[in-house]
């Protein structure tokens, strides 16, 4: 019988840089790799590492995440003891409010540690795509007698400004921690995987809550402060694939990584299954005249047209004569006859009318509404939108969720924006 273990997963992130994709769902609930959601990787890592007691902290638009996680059955987390609990912000006790930062989110859920016998607490992020055996982290933590161990991965020099960057001495002890520095000598980025000694965590969180001016965030305040005063903070280096799918471009690129001859992660490893909530869908049906190349296509799809270098989630139909190139198409979207898509990211339940043309034209015009996140020539179509027959939508365009066919006044130029009906919130 191994020691009891407990993990918090931070799943409240808004993922602003994902633009439309996380407008109506938390980032961990964003579909990935044809049939998964981003959080599946972290949840599967937990259960594959033998951690079956998990609290998931939600805040931003949790409904899609709640539906996905459900009772936790796909991960064998529907259990009598332990299992999975969704921890949303609540009112009621003295310290109840919205979560301010990651440390604050854990602080407000300290009560869950009260009767748990775990000596360490694993704090994870639900935003990343990677496979990791956390047992190795526990072993490292014990060997180094660390109070907190941060898993780190090497990132390119020009990417340091997107991460928490750590500096270590020769022994792996962390001697510097800077959140999103403009430049840095070190290229070791925090993976958002922290293993804390339980009592130290409780002490530090209480202390942080009493520190005036703290942002109540692990990366911005708490960890840098611990490092600065010489606490036993260690970095555990990970060399395997780890991807923060934080931007539209990295989301697109990391989906496409899985189409290469050597995918970065083996999704079909029987010893490390990535579990997800999958509906009962029949096998993929390829009709006469279908043409497919370098693509990943999930059960429930029906393909009669052409699909090249693309990822199709369950239940997508590609009608005869339709052409889908270099695109990511989510669940149950219908692409009608003769439609042509290139470099499009199309959300769930979208209808693309016959003969529509998406992604053709000048790709140098950034998106009007989010120029900083949508300028590389991709285009986004929101959930449930209905694109009329024959419409043209240029690169870097953004079509909001639930735009009806009548909501278009004409073609959408490069960088153009068509907003959907106001969401209830």
């Amino acid at each position, binding site marked *: 019988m191994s020691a009891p273990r407990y993990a918090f997963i931070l799943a409240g992130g808004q993922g602003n840089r994902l633009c439309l994709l996380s407008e109506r769902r938390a980032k961990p609930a964003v579909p990935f790799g044809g049939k998964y959601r981003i959080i599946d990787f972290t949840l599967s890592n937990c259960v594959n590492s033998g951690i079956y007691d998990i609290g998931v902290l939600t805040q931003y638009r949790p409904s899609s995440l709640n539906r996905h996680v459900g009772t936790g059955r796909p991960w064998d987390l529907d259990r009598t003891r332990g299992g999975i609990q969704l921890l949303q912000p609540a009112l009621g006790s003295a310290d109840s409010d919205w979560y301010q930062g990651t440390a604050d989110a854990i602080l407000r859920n300290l009560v869950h540690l009260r009767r748990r016998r775990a000596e360490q607490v694993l704090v994870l992020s639900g935003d990343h795509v990677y496979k990791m055996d956390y047992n190795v982290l526990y072993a490292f933590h014990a060997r180094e007698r660390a109070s907190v161990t941060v898993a780190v991965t090497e990132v390119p020099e020009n990417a340091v400004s997107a991460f928490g960057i750590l500096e270590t001495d020769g022994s792996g002890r962390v001697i510097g921690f800077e959140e999103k520095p403009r430049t840095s000598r070190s290229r070791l980025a925090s993976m958002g995987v922290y293993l804390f000694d339980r009592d130290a965590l409780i002490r530090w969180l209480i202390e942080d809550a009493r520190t005036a001016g703290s942002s109540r965030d692990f990366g911005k305040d708490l960890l840098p402060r611990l490092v600065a005063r010489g606490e036993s903070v260690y970095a555990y280096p990970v060399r395997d694939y780890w991807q923060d799918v934080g931007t539209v471009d990295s989301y697109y690129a990391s989906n496409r990584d899985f189409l290469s001859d050597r995918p970065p992660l083996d999704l079909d490893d029987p010893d490390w299954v990535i579990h997800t909530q999958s509906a009962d869908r*029949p096998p993929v049906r390829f009709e006469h005249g*279908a043409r497919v190349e370098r693509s990943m296509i*999930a059960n429930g799809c029906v393909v009669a047209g052409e699909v090249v270098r693309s990822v199709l989630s369950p239940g997508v139909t590609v009608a005869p004569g339709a052409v889908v190139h270099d695109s990511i198409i989510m669940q149950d979207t219908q692409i009608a006859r003769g439609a042509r898509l290139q470099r499009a990211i199309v959300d769930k339940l979208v209808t693309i009318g016959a003969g529509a043309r998406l992604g053709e034209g000048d790709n140098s015009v950034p998106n009007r509404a989010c120029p900083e996140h949508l300028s590389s020539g991709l285009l986004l179509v929101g959930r449930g939108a209905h694109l009329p027959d024959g419409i043209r939508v240029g690169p870097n365009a953004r079509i909001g969720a639930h735009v009806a066919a009548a909501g278009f006044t004409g073609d959408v130029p490069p960088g153009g924006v068509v907003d959907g009906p106001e969401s209830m919130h």
Partner: protein
Amino acid sequence: MPETMVLVLAGGGGERLSVLTYERAVSALPFGGKYRVIDFVLSNCSHSHLTVVGILTQHAPISLNDHIGAGRPWDLDRREGGVLILQPFTTRTHAGWYRGTADAIAQNWDVIEDHRPERILVLSGDQIYRMDYRSLMHTHEQQRAAVTLAVTRVPSSQTPRFGMTTIDRDGRVTELIEKPERAATPFASMGIYLFEYGALAEAMRPGPVNLVLDVLRPLVAAGERVMAHEFAGYWEDVGTIGSYYHSNLEMVAPEPRLALHDPRWPVLTRDEERPPVLLGAGAVVDRALIANGCRISGTVRRSVLFPGVVVESGAEVVDSVVMQDAKIGPGARLERALLDKFTRIGEGARVGSSTPAALQDHAWLEGLVLIGKDAIVAAHGRVEPPAVVGIGARVQPGSGGYVGPGTQVPSRVWYEDVV
């Protein structure tokens, strides 16, 4: 609605299915790219809101038991009722394999009685069809029947395969004839019977063996209200190599008669978590059903591929059914072949052809090549139809690497290499 208990007869060994059913019941045969045969009946039950389902097993039940488990995929894991596996058992005074369909039911009568059903619906676990049993129950009620049989029209050339019925104008069954050369009506009995509890209980007393001969025929002869309910949809009994092969390939027909993609009546199954189908740079797919976990770099035409099948580049799979985790090596060619799970076809091998030798004593193979579970055809091996390569057998250079028409390579025990 009165409570109906379902009994699924799933003990059949499928003698005519050769190596496909040496180690599994017919009901546990993989079907349609990701299902097992019994999924169709269990999904029908689930969608018809029938939640007390006894499954009678006898022949090689391991894979069936694994598949059914607690019945969750069909929402049959219930506090009350749910799925019950009824295997043969011994008592102090009696040790009994099931001698026949009626005997199987009779031996479990205690269990059936405990559930106090008002009606008993007897089904076969070996059939592919989609049916709302509530319409059968409706006919039964309207006709105030003691027993209602589902019947379906079959072509006159097919009557020797079926139990045929004679039905009068009121829908009453007046005669049941097993496998006649010619029949008075085109209505075959589908092996789907709804009994009033009392009628079946009474019929169990004399110790019947066969449900048709010892229960239904006497009821018809005694003038009981045995009524017919016509079913017009797709229905297939997968008891032969030919019917198994053709009904699988029916699923890749341009307009399949049973639509797997109908979201209103999904076929429910125990699913494995596998990634989406990965199609490589040279993939060609045409009229194919390909399940999650497959990796395709070669050509697949008019074929059904189960989860985890790998088709390497230059390989061709034509008019074939390939079960889970089979690997087809580079440049290998499969035509009109049935491959069981975990088979491996080496580089450049040739298995099956569109022009099989016509051998009278192998007519049951319908010109196909059948490769048993775990069997290996080494690189550049050849298997010419009709032929059977046994479970775990190896077709390799040592043995000439050649299997000619009419050959049956014997099965090999899996631990042969260990002992």
